[in-house]
């Protein structure tokens, strides 16, 4: 395998000829500014308007504080015709879940799971999840109904801001997942169907407090 490495790098060097790599160090240290997509002055409002678009096929609501999250989850489960039971990430286990039976493991066909986003992006209407011991990745992908909690203060305007927010927390985690609306596929006769493998339903709780 080291032989292949030497052959490939040798082939590249032969193709490129002698050159100066100062440009590489310079670019890694100071990436140039790039064109962005315009975003409203209020990223929270912009994010919620993206969530409402049919292209995302998701829903959202504002919640006054973290303490109000369990009630909002209970209301969602009731209107979806689901029992008062959910898988909840360890990061949110400390809330008072009241009448909802919570567990922190995931069934293969988990009906509903609640997870906590590290940030959200107004530009695209995306949620940003960073894997961690108290925030396993699969809570965002296994369930049929995915409820995501994100603090309004963690909603940033652009993609670049989201990367910066995650990297400010420390070394990159194993996964950073951007989730934008619900799973979908148009592979059969170009007809869009939601819930291909990931969640078919996504409900976002934007917490103000």
């Amino acid at each position: 395998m080291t032989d292949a490495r030497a052959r490939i790098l040798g082939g590249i060097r032969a193709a490129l000829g002698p050159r100066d790599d100062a440009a590489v160090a310079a670019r890694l240290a100071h990436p140039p500014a790039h064109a962005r997509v315009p975003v409203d002055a209020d990223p929270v409002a912009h994010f919620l308007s993206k969530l409402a678009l049919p292209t995302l096929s998701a829903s959202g609501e504002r919640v006054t504080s973290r303490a109000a999250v369990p009630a909002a989850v209970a209301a969602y489960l009731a209107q979806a015709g689901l029992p008062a039971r959910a898988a909840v990430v360890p990061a949110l286990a400390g809330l008072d879940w009241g009448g909802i039976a919570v567990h922190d493991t995931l069934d293969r066909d988990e009906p509903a799971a609640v997870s906590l986003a590290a940030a959200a992006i107004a530009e695209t209407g995306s949620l940003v999840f960073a894997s961690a011991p108290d925030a396993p990745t699969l809570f965002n992908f296994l369930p049929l109904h995915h409820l995501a909690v994100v603090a309004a203060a963690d909603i940033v305007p652009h993609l670049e801001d989201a990367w910066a927010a995650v990297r400010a927390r420390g070394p990159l985690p194993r996964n950073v997942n951007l989730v934008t609306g619900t799973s979908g596929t148009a592979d059969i006769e170009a007809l869009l169907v939601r819930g291909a493998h990931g969640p078919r339903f996504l409900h976002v709780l934007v917490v103000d407090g």
Partner: protein
Amino acid sequence: MTAARAQFRRRVVQALDDAGLAVALDRTTTLLSGRRRHVLADFPDFERARDEARDLKDHVLAHLDTYLETFERNATAAGATVHWAQSAAEARQAVVDICRAANAKTVTKSKSMLGEEIAVNAALEAAGIRPVETDLGEHIIQLAGELPSHIVMPAMHKTRAEIAALFERHHAGHPKLTEVRDLVESARREIRDAYFAADVGISGANFLIAETGSTVTVTNEGNAELTTALPRVHIVIVGIEKVVPTFADMTVLLRLLARSALGAEFTQYVTVYTGPKRAGDRDGPQEFHVVLVDHERTGLLAGPYREMLRCIRCGACMNECPVYGAIGGHAYGWVYPGPMGAVLTPTMLGRDSAPDLPEACTLNGRCAEVCPVRIPLATMLRRLRADAWTAGLVEKPVRLGVRLWAFAATRPALYRALSAAGLRAYALARRLGLKRLPFAGGWTASRDLPPPAGRSFHALWRERDRDR
């Protein structure tokens, strides 16, 4: 005629006779190209972003070895094992070796065009390992034993009835389904079992980020995440040209990718993978491998088609191409169809493998107009034609015809005399009932011969000049 030419022409005739394919092609290309135009309205700086994307790709290619070494260093520091594979055979072997070391029986795969390119599934099967494609389109063509017909929507040529028949035959319980939603549900159930049974998950990578040693997937279904978070081992197979310097550079390309590929602002899932499970992680792989694959890319780097390495595999070019729109992906004979396939197939597999592809082009240039990284596709196809001429690959009748035309065209008086005589002969022949033109039987078999204009352009021009 060479075997390759005969095969291509047979596939083209077959495709043109396929009414169902025509419906599928029209539906898919019209939908995707229309959506693409629509979605650009919300991105005023789109053209600037294309310039930035082209420039960053050219910069990376000009320093490709340094960026690959930077990626390798940072990936290794994050706990990844980085492998290098120059040929398709070496790449297949690397994947099989990792799977064998993991005692893998079942492997789940998320969509990887590179995987198709190096034919990794066949190698796994030969090693007694079962690969399960999880992307719905790839799942369908895996069951059908076919190649993809579009790089973004691989099963776009299949009708729901054909897919229902495949699922009835292969899915547990042999369901008899008709609705598209039910077909998707059946695949969701069938593949979910595979996710949990898999010992190894294989993914591709849309990008490699040098500054952190991360890989990135850009998908819509959630299958990449389920493929890679559940098994003990995650293998990324990726072409060496996919490396970008920083997250900022990746973001430029991210803004272009879904817009160009699907006419969507963004895809549902963008995941950045950096190393294996961390201490305390409850999901994720214990081993994270990245197989960096060359497979003819250093050859492209060294030659006149280097810009082809900018390609981010969006498929916008084939959505605009009238030839792809008429014959579909399978006619191109390999895993990459449309304009990008017409360049990649001869340059990666050798000119002899696909002599007709660069010629099956009207040079309309729409592909280059929509390419997010401004690859001069039409110019490259024209150059490939010139290369084929120089290499003596053009068929004798065509060479003779071009030589005769060149002889006359470089002698203006002779050319005008021949044109004038030809026009009179044509007018006479039509009056006498001529219906078919010699050497143009294919064209005149289904078209009426047009009436001659009467006078040649040169004659009319001379008259106009005199009248001034």
